[in-house]
């Protein structure tokens, strides 16, 4: 029996090691490409390490006038930050109201919110485009930011979270004369940091990596996000592959750093979503 258990352990380690290799190699290829010369990347022989390290690619990415990378980084940052803050405030408040305020129609409202989860956001891009273009918001930051502020999933998760929040603390606050508003901002919010951080990081990642909506709405180069700028490089004829890798590294670095720093929150957030219960 002991023998058999050891065999499982060996097999497990081999599989995990193999998986680790497979999962990390693409990141390595990205870094390798970003610091290679164009000639080395397209040469007939494969090198695990670039024969000559090219440090100028990163600078060249920002000097390219046809793909304004600096502007794209600024746009992506503005969009991701404002959507994260907006979703936390809007969904946090709505989740609390749905969880705690015993309004007659709150079940109906909750149902109307939850049912939109079944409709994939991407399938509604044609109607949403129609609306945003009627509003005259094409190629504007407004058009890129505002429709993404209303995330039914975040509201749903906040509601579940607030349902499990200890009621006694809120009752004590109410006895002290705090209104719903005061209770929420002064008692509930300060005690929801971990969960809000989880929802916030997930929103930030989704917003930074979004592709279809920015592709549809951002029609002029100065309204491009990082992902669109990158895609433009990728589908253009004249692009240099090494520059493309450098641009991708620029696009992924802020997120990767944040991800490594906040990983605990993200994992906790996904685990606490309760989707898998």
């Amino acid at each position, binding site marked *: 029996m002991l023998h058999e*258990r050891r065999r*499982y352990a060996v097999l*497990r380690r081999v599989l*995990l090691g193999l998986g680790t290799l497979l*999962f*990390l190699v*693409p990141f390595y290829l*990205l870094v390798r*490409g970003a610091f290679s010369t164009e000639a080395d990347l397209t040469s*007939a*022989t*494969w090198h695990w390490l670039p024969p000559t390290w090219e440090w100028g690619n990163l600078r060249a990415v920002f000097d390219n006038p046809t793909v304004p990378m600096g502007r794209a980084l600024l746009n992506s940052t503005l969009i991701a930050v404002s959507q994260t803050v907006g979703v936390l405030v*809007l969904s946090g*408040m*709505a989740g*609390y*109201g749905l969880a*705690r*305020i*015993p*309004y007659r129609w*709150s079940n109906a*409202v909750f149902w109307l*919110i939850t049912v939109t989860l079944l*409709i*994939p956001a*991407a*399938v*509604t*891009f*044609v*109607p949403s*485009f*129609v609306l945003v273009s*009627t509003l005259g918001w094409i190629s504007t930051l407004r058009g890129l930011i505002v*429709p993404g*502020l209303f995330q039914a999933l975040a509201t749903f998760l906040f509601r579940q979270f607030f349902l499990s929040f200890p009621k006694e603390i*809120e009752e004590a606050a*109410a*006895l002290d004369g705090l*209104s*719903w508003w005061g209770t929420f901002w002064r008692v509930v919010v300060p005690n929801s940091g971990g969960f809000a951080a989880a929802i916030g990081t997930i929103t930030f*990642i989704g917003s930074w*990596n979004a592709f*279809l909506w920015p592709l549809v709405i951002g029609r002029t180069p100065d309204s491009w996000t990082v*992902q669109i700028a990158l*895609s433009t490089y*990728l*589908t253009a004829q004249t692009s240099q592959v090494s520059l*493309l*890798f450098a641009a*991708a590294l620029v696009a*992924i670095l802020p*997120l990767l750093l944040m991800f490594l720093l906040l990983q605990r929150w*993200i*994992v906790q957030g*996904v*685990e606490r979503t309760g989707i*898998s*219960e």
Partner: protein
Amino acid sequence: MLARLRGRQDVNLWFWVFVGPFFAGLVLFIYVPIGWSIYLSFFEAYNTVTPTEFVGMANYRDMLTDRAFRDSLLTFVVFAAFIVPTTFALSLLTAVLVARTRVMQAFFRSVFFLPVACSYVVAALIWKMSIFSGMRSGVANALLGLVGASPIPWLSLTDPPWYWLVIVSARLWLQVGFYMILFLAALQRVPTNLYEAAAIDGAEGWQVFRHITWPQLVPASTAVLLLLLINAFQAFDEFYNILSGFGGYPPYARPPLVYLYYTALGTGQNFGDGSAGAVILTVLIAALALAQTRLLRLGGRD
């Protein structure tokens, strides 16, 4: 209790103060567009988002008799048939492997979860330009070269359709980690006394998984399958970025969203047909999702 403390009359007001801003936005940006889209699907609307001429069900007939639209649904079926079971199996496998590992568990979890931070565009770039580039210098072709095989043009062949390997492997890399976390969370909730009881009965390895772990994972599996299906239906980013090049997008392997994108926002700007297509897809995905939850729930009851 809370309500009594604060008096009933304020409940209406406060509910809408908290929920109102979000709900108004949701109505404006989800319900209004969908309503408008259903309306628009009965009209001609070329190059404009305002309806011009009422055509009844003609747009729906256009879409349903359109070979390319039906092909896009077939593409989705093929794609889902590859991606759903493979992602499911691999994320479950990694979750079980990571859960049983005491040493370096956080490290392995991070490694598999890290690609979740990566966008489909970046992954498409690595896959298209580095791993599966048709050149000798591509990783896949370099590996083939080691065993003496000649290089394969992975993306420009339709027979055999190697591009599926490129598309599917990119998505696997990106999403396995996310579903692994869902399974890990479910695995951690399995009561340890069940495992102790199994150990006393002398159960080992596969038997433990089959009779103890798996039954506890059924609810998580239902959620994972549903999410996988909805996400497969939304596939756009990697198809668009891997397959389209300077010459445009090849006619094969257009999943529904790519097809819809080119119908509504391509050169034709056909918003009537595009809206009808969006309605058909919405109905399809809702029906599939409902059927799947019903089926799995029935299965789980046995």
